[in-house]
């Protein structure tokens, strides 16, 4: 009896939001809204609301350089925060199609309600040019939980070197802002490579941080002679042997850092984050069947023999659903994780990652990974 009274009292002392979420997530609410579910109705009035998914509303948009856009997002209640240096997968609808790309928050990890992302518009990209051109406050995007291990250890290292180039500035910006907010007093070197200062998204913020925190040494590659090397690191005021180093940027820069650190036996003190654009796989020519087919979920694989993916899956011992086997009924449609495929009806090649395809009418054009 006492337990029952306590439970009732608890319901009334819970905050209104938690109570509302409990009601919305209850089995009664589900039974009333079956089969679509509560969220499909609430979305009409509150697009960013969800009981489980992380969604965020864009609250501010800033175009600091001619190639970038900085978004301030307010995530919904399902957001669990992030550790400085991690990334999120952002999903947004571009011309009717939902696309997902990885971005690293650039804000301090201690900022609770808002997350700042910066996208650099890749000319051949689909999402970044869209965001640069069309992002506006009020838009709602989806976020994954934060992931990645490009992070600071719990016990902060005394000296930190942050090396970045181009769009790689975002995670190290988060590392820098987080350390500064914590009142870190050890030396921090911030070495950034860009075309010129006008091309640096966070030029103003960096100048302000360096002015406010004397332990932060800011150096731009375009102010220094030559390429990344010992001289540049020295200019940032850091001894690599005494510091934890974080590097993020184009492949050539990262290779240079990795090589130099390896030469000095300092691999253990270096963490690298590589941004890879979803590179379209080079499609093989129509005549020869090359590459292999990976069936990710069942852990099987097979050499591509040119047959349709449905036939190759069946030959590999799988039993995917199928129907008409001529591309009408969509029974066989499943997710292609990555790779290039050819539609045998039209000859068209598709290389987009994370795409639904009808496997009865597609053949591999190179390596393909299917989610079956």
């Amino acid at each position, binding site marked *: 009896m006492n337990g029952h009274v306590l439970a009732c009292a608890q319901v009334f002392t819970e905050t209104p939001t938690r109570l509302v979420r409990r009601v919305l997530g209850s089995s009664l609410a589900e039974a*009333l809204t*079956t*089969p679509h579910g509560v969220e499909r109705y609430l979305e009409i009035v509150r697009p960013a609301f969800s009981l489980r998914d992380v969604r965020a509303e864009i609250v501010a948009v800033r175009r600091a350089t001619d190639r970038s856009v900085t978004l301030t997002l307010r995530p919904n209640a399902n957001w669990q925060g992030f550790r400085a240096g991690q990334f999120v997968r952002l999903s947004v609808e571009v*011309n009717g*199609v939902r696309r997902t790309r990885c971005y690293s928050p650039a804000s301090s990890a201690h900022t609770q309600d808002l997350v700042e992302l910066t996208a650099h518009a890749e000319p051949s990209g689909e999402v970044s040019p869209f965001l640069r051109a069309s992002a506006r406050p009020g838009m709602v995007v989806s976020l994954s939980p934060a992931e990645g291990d490009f992070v600071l250890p719990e016990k902060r290292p005394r000296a930190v070197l942050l090396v970045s180039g181009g769009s790689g500035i975002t995670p190290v910006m988060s590392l820098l802002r987080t350390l500064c907010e914590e009142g870190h007093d050890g030396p921090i070197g911030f070495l950034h490579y860009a075309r010129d200062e006008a091309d640096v998204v966070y030029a103003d913020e960096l100048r302000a941080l360096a002015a406010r925190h004397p332990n932060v040494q800011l150096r731009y590659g375009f102010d220094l002679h030559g390429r990344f090397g010992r001289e540049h690191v020295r200019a940032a005021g850091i001894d690599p042997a005494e510091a934890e180093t974080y590097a993020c940027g184009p492949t050539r820069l990262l290779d240079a850092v990795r090589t130099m650190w390896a030469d000095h036996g300092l691999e253990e003190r270096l963490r690298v984050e590589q941004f890879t654009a979803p590179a379209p796989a080079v499609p093989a020519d129509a005549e020869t069947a090359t590459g292999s087919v990976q069936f990710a979920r069942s852990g099987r694989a097979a050499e591509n023999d040119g047959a349709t993916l449905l036939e190759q899956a069946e030959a590999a011992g799988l039993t995917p659903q199928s129907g008409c086997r001529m591309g*009408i009924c969509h029974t066989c*449609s499943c997710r292609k994780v990555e790779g290039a495929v050819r539609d045998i009806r039209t000859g068209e090649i598709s290389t987009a990652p994370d795409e*639904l395809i009808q496997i009865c009418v597609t053949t591999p054009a190179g390596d393909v990974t299917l989610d079956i």
Partner: protein
Amino acid sequence: MSTSSPPQLTPEQLDAFGRELDAIRERVIADLGERDAAYIRRVITTQRALEIGGRGLLLLSILPPAWLAGTAALSLSKILDNMEIGHNVMHGQYDWMNDPDVNGHSFEWDSACPSEQWRHSHNYMHHTHTNILGKDRDIGYGVLRMSEDQRWHPYYLGNPVYAVLLALFFQWGVALHDLEVEKLNTGKARWSDKREMVEAIWRKGRRQALKDYALFPLLSGPSAPFAFTGNLTANAVRNVWAFMIIFCGHFPEGTHEFTEEETEGETRGAWYHRQLLGSANLTGGQIFHIMSGNLSHQIEHHLFPDLPAHRYAELAVEVREICERYGLPYNAGSLPRQFGSVVKKIVKLALPGGGGDDEQPAVEPTPLPRRPRAKRREAVAA
């Protein structure tokens, strides 16, 4: 069904016909984008608003105006959910959007039929074997005699009655469709094989019934019995409307059936040809098309089942033109006319024989030449 053989094309003509339709399909696919995404979102938002409004009004349905308005809104909501949204989304028409809300495999509709079974019996079986006697179970749905080539049995004297019952309880008829009860009755299939399907139908049907006939009425306090009748009526309205539209798809005067023999080794062009000749359109305004789930464009839907249905109206112009050039019929008529011919057929086929040799099939724009009747195939068992 037609009393004359379908117009024949040479294999070369069929190939050319098929290529022209393929070209239309590819063009539309390349064009899909913002416009189509925005359209389906608008329809979905409208449906959900109607549902919330309807259910809300029915909470106060002890007041007759609230009952009327609530039932009307809920009827419209169920019709949209079933037809323009459910049927079309499940065809994969919006899979290209990569949005889990409108994904053909995961969408579940507000109807007793489990979506998985609908996708099997409709997307796969019906659309692949359209109007092939013995393979397309939509010919009669296992309960009606809709073809003179279905062997007559005294059971079919009740054809009109079964049709009325099927119409009123259509969502349950559809729910049981994939079970193939007629095969279970004749021993061609075993109940033990169907256990999972039966359980799925039970689960879905129970959830739907609980929602419409128990939970919402109970929530309505004094309006309980009125909410109950309101929900019952909304389901019946949706059932009858869907029945009418669907039965106008392949049964009006002038539609053709095919045998398994003549469709063996069918080329792509021949597949398109059969889809065209087996289907019939309904003429009407834009609202009518939307409320019919664009099944008023049954021909375009059967030619292009996985293109977003709202595009069919504009494609119809091109399809008609192609049909004219190839001398093929394009069966289109008003709802009263097409459904009238379906009703006539249901009544006629209640009696033995039932084919109308002296009837001119009414098709437009190209009238069919009168040709001797094709040899009757062995009658299909009920």
